[in-house]
């Protein structure tokens, strides 16, 4: 931890020194002190943008988790369906979603809806793949025994399958949020009028490097905080299990 903080300080100091000595063009690589100075003037706009982006991400996240877990339960539970559709799911998961982004914007316009849809699209497939895989790999013996003791289908899902896939769902919760945030930011950069993505795009186009660096740091910090928060939650839940 000490070494990590120390190397961060060294990097920042070296960067500051290079910028002051004029070895890098401050138009493109501003000194850390210049970035820090830009924070007060940017703070209000950036925080509003971040709130907007995170609100869209939360909506996209909710949609992708609910739809992904539901579809994963269906797909993983029915062997025939899974065997048939798996290649399509893998292909859609691997396909760069950016190719359909222009069409989504064409259909849904500029604003909140395309960002939520595209963000959810990003989050949906990893959740679906993780959850359907976990459902498929539920110990067959447990299912057989539960059935032998007369469990009904809904009881099988509630008492055997759901507890067994909790780790996969938790992993999906962690993975999905980064994908959703990524999708929302991409839409905002491509065709946004609000949010951090559009703010960062505008700052880059305006050659306002100090503000851009500050905004980038803010989004990065927010997303690291979210992931660490989910990790902590994960840890707590797995201890409880």
């Amino acid at each position: 931890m000490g070494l990590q903080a120390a190397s961060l300080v060294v990097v920042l100091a070296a960067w500051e020194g290079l910028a002051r000595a004029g070895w890098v063009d401050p138009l493109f690589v501003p000194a850390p002190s210049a970035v820090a100075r830009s924070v007060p003037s940017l703070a209000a706009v950036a925080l509003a943008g971040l709130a907007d982006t995170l609100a869209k991400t939360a909506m996209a996240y909710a949609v992708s988790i609910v739809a992904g877990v539901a579809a994963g339960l269906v797909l993983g539970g029915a062997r025939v369906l899974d065997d048939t559709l798996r290649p399509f799911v893998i292909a859609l998961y691997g396909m760069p979603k950016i190719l359909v982004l222009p069409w989504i914007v064409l259909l849904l316009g500029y604003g909140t809806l395309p960002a939520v849809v595209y963000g959810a699209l990003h989050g949906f497939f990893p959740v679906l793949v993780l959850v359907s895989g976990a459902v498929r790999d539920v110990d067959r013996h447990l299912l057989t025994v539960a059935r032998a003791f007369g469990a009904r289908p809904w009881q099988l899902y509630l008492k055997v399958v759901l507890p067994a896939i909790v780790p996969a769902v938790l992993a999906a919760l962690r993975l999905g949020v980064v994908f959703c945030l990524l999708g929302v930011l991409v839409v905002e950069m491509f065709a946004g009028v609000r949010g951090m993505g559009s703010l960062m795009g505008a700052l880059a186009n305006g050659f306002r490097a100090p503000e851009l660096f500050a905004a980038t740091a803010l989004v990065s910090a927010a997303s690291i905080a979210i992931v660490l928060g989910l990790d902590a939650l994960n840890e707590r839940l797995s201890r409880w299990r």
Partner: protein
Amino acid sequence: MTALIRAAVIVAGLAAWEVAARVGSPLLYVPPSAALPALRDLLLLRSYPDVLEHLWLTIGEILAAYGLAVAAGLGVGGALGLYRTLGRVYGPILAALYAVPAVVWYPSLMLFFGLDAASKVAFGFLLGFFPITLAVLAGIRQVNPQLVTVARAFGAGPLTVFAKVLVPGMLFTLVGGLRTGLALSVVGVIVGEILGSKAGMGALINHAYGLLRTADYVALVVVTLVVIVAADVGASLLERRARRWTG
């Protein structure tokens, strides 16, 4: 039997697409029956006569980005894996940075490298770099440390240890990372082109979309997808080969 059902799923999907698209506005929805002629026009160089130049540019950007990502990923991952202290200090920083949606770096790269190919190469590099580095790091940890100790005792330097002991020992993990890295480098280049560029397939896609030439847009997407799928098929063949070699 499953192959038959899969074919039926594809046909049903295309049919549904055709019906749905005919109901909607032709400016927004393109049925397959309209996309195919657009694809023919594109391939015959009628709709975009310079499509091949753009295609080569995109492929060139992908190759450059991936080459840099492989070189840097092997170097950084190897250094962090071989020198445990370095790995303990900087491994978590890398993992934390990996948790940041990579697209946040793109505006800075665009500012720094401009709208031309360099910013796309840089972004493709950035996306490909992380999985390769992390795979090298994870792979080195799998290798039996006694093999490394023995090799060192016989006087092997870091590079020899890397090439003769570590790479064969971690090949399985390494090729997985290399394949993911390629897929992400491809995504990075294409995302970069669509977010802002003057040339390349992404620029053509934006052009077609901006002019509501939706059928041409679909055709360009299909051609781009062929490039993407070809890259992944090539990578998976190499992966299979490497797996057979390690047994």
